[in-house]
């Protein structure tokens, strides 16, 4: 079983459209994991049934029991996150600022502070239209700890893949280089980087690859909308050569990416021409590479 993680650094480069296309091409041999839990969109293309739904708790939140509080103010003094303001003659916890470190509860002389588990969101296991399974999640509004939810989604996908003898796990990652991305990279066999020939696309590709390189994971790159700016495309190719990243595909600028989404379809279901052929070849290429790793 091989785990392939699709990331991009920059958002909006076509990650989800491509990941969903690969899932449709590989049908029942692949478990899909949508690890962009902040703004999960893959379910819009995969027609999931939300068969199993589970709440996810992680991290803590301080709560002050007002009846036991003697207003000594020690908690507010030690809080490094300014999360315990004094409002209307009472100390209250600012839930948005509280990091859940638990320090205040430990030093409160009257044990007036307790920590409650914080709801981070929901995760789901669904049957999807390809005849396979997908693990996905929804982060609660304003929730912290999205990295933990990503880890949960990945672990569930791994369990399903192992029990069902699936060949691949296909992971749709989130933009950026922070904790959710680090979390989605752990345990990956291969990383697919999706970029676009814009100054931002190249800049973000370089930063996210630095992270991938730190994890020592082999990577390949798809240049989407390659014909938008051929000179930046050349710069990207040069970077790929220097870093020994597999150059997987050049995909032309096409409104079919958006058109497919508005029909709730993946590109390989919507497009019947060149675009479909390129994506099919790309997926074959990825499979060839990972079987050699």
């Amino acid at each position, binding site marked *: 079983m091989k785990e392939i993680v699709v990331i991009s650094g920059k*958002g909006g480069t076509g990650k989800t459209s491509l990941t969903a296309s690969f899932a449709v091409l590989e049908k029942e041999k692949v478990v899909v994991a949508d690890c962009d839990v902040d703004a999960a969109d893959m379910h819009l293309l995969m027609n999931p049934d939300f068969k199993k739904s589970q709440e996810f708790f992680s991290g803590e939140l301080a709560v002050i029991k007002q009846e036991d509080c003697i207003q000594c103010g020690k908690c507010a003094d030690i809080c490094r996150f300014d999360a315990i303001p004094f409002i209307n003659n009472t100390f209250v916890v600012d839930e948005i600022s509280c990091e859940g470190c638990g320090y205040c509860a*430990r030093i409160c002389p009257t044990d007036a502070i307790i920590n409650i588990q914080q709801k981070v969101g929901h995760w789901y296991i669904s049957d999807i239209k390809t005849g396979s399974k997908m693990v996905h999640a929804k982060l609660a*509004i*304003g929730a912290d700890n*999205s990295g933990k939810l990503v880890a949960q989604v990945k672990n569930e996908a791994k369990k399903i893949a192992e029990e069902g003898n699936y060949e691949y796990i296909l992971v749709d990652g989130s933009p950026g280089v*922070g904790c959710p991305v680090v979390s989605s990279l752990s345990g990956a066999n291969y990383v697919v980087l999706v970029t*676009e020939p814009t*100054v931002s696309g190249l800049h973000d590709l370089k*930063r996210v690859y630095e992270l991938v390189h730190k994890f020592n994971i082999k990577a390949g790159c798809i240049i989407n909308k390659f014909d938008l700016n051929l000179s930046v495309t050349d710069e990207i190719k040069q970077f790929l050569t220097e870093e020994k990243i597999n150059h997987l595909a050049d995909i032309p600028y096409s409104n079919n990416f958006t058109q497919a989404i508005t029909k709730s379809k993946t590109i390989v279901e919507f497009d019947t021409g060149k675009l479909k052929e390129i994506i099919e070849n790309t997926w074959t290429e990825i499979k060839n590479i990972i079987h050699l790793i």
Partner: protein
Amino acid sequence: MKIAIASGKGGTGKTTVSVNLASYLSENNNVVLVDLDVEEPNSALFIKGNLIHEEDKFKMIPDWKQPECTLCGICQKVCNFHAVIQLGTMILVFPELCHSCYACSELCPTNALPMITKKMGELKEYKSNNLAFVNSHLLIGEEQAVPLIHQTIKYVDLKFNDTFIKIYDSPPGTSCPVIEASKDADFVFLVTEPTPFGLHDLKLAVDTMKELNKAFGVIINRNGIGNDDVENYCKKEKIPVIAKIPNNRKIAELYSGGNLIYNEISEVKEELIKIENFIKLNIFSNLT
């Protein structure tokens, strides 16, 4: 006045709106543009200014002093983030997991874990004509964006007074980094695109802004590419649609080369004027 430019979905045009709006407004106002997408900051690729200041940004982490340590185990017990672990006769600190709460350090009975600084990123300030520009980037491998966003906002608050229009280019998503970037804002512009992905993530962003009690409006980018669902949703929810930037390959090409757009494409400038008028009428007047 503080204005955050945010979005649920990545790649909808936050940076395009931020750099063009900031540059346009700076023709007649004092403006500071602040790139708070510290994981992948891009505004600097579009604003060609002179570097006038740079500084390293640090977070605080505990540093184990073996001679002082009695291996009592309190540090490990009080760390909710598993950033301090006792392994045999060693105390290991994992800086990337540390939230700098100081609990281990201050509760250590023998002062064996004093806090020290660790570099997490760099802040740079530029000047381009009448536009001030501040950006920070997180070092690769650092996982927490929030402390750097917090320190960057603090720097801007100290350096630029209230006569400045402060524009925050925010990170994507709906979790802690975007909340840190928008919680001090007087108004939030949510940039979206008229597609099912755009709409889905816009709804999440709207819920987040409601939770934060923020005043907000929507800017539709790549208008014309998908369908009318975003506009219908905004109408139904009574969310103002402040501007619509057309879908145009020429815009994408200008963006791809790191160029500002509004001086090249008049339809974009017209939309920026709408945003400017909205700011004057609805945001500025509410503050004074």
